[in-house]
């Protein structure tokens, strides 16, 4: 069964693949942009999670 975090990881992975392929023309740039989108998504979620934790405490 998926947890919230694993669901988010899969979402970020699939979204990054599509964004990488569609938003860049060269394969190397596709890979770079896909990795950038994935890192930004996962990093953003981790930062937002800690922010929510800090607000709660």
């Amino acid at each position, binding site marked *: 069964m998926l947890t919230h975090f694993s669901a988010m990881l899969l979402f970020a992975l699939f979204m990054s*693949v*599509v964004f990488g392929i569609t938003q860049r023309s060269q394969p190397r740039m596709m890979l770079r942009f896909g990795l950038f989108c994935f890192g930004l998504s996962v990093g953003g979620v981790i930062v937002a999670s800690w922010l929510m934790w800090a607000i709660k405490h």
Partner: protein
Amino acid sequence: MATPAPSHARAAAPTAKSSLPALVLLLGWLVPGAGHLILGKWLRGLLLFISIFGMYLIGLALAGKIYLPNTGDVLDMLGFVGQLGMGLLYGLARIFSLGATSSVNTLADYGTKFLVCAGLLNLIAAVDAHSLANGRKPS
């Protein structure tokens, strides 16, 4: 003043009025990645299919909601438009009554978002294939 098209775009653009871009757009919408496959970009097509179909399967596995048209709620209508972007996958979900009629918990709500985003990403992929076919995107 109109900006002239780059030379690579002019070179790739079809000389005569062709129905290929429209066909690619339609097939890319109906089946994720099919537009890229028709254009010979099989690896991109395969990756797009795996990604969008994967999101679709996860959305259904999480008991995500399949939106119906004409429910009267604006958000429901937007969700319907988003999911309609999945093309045949949305039709299959409707025909075989896959998915849920409402989100019952948080993970089911995640599933609904997976399904809507799968549709929106499929639309982006179909438009990308269309841009490749008409030469607006170089490669």
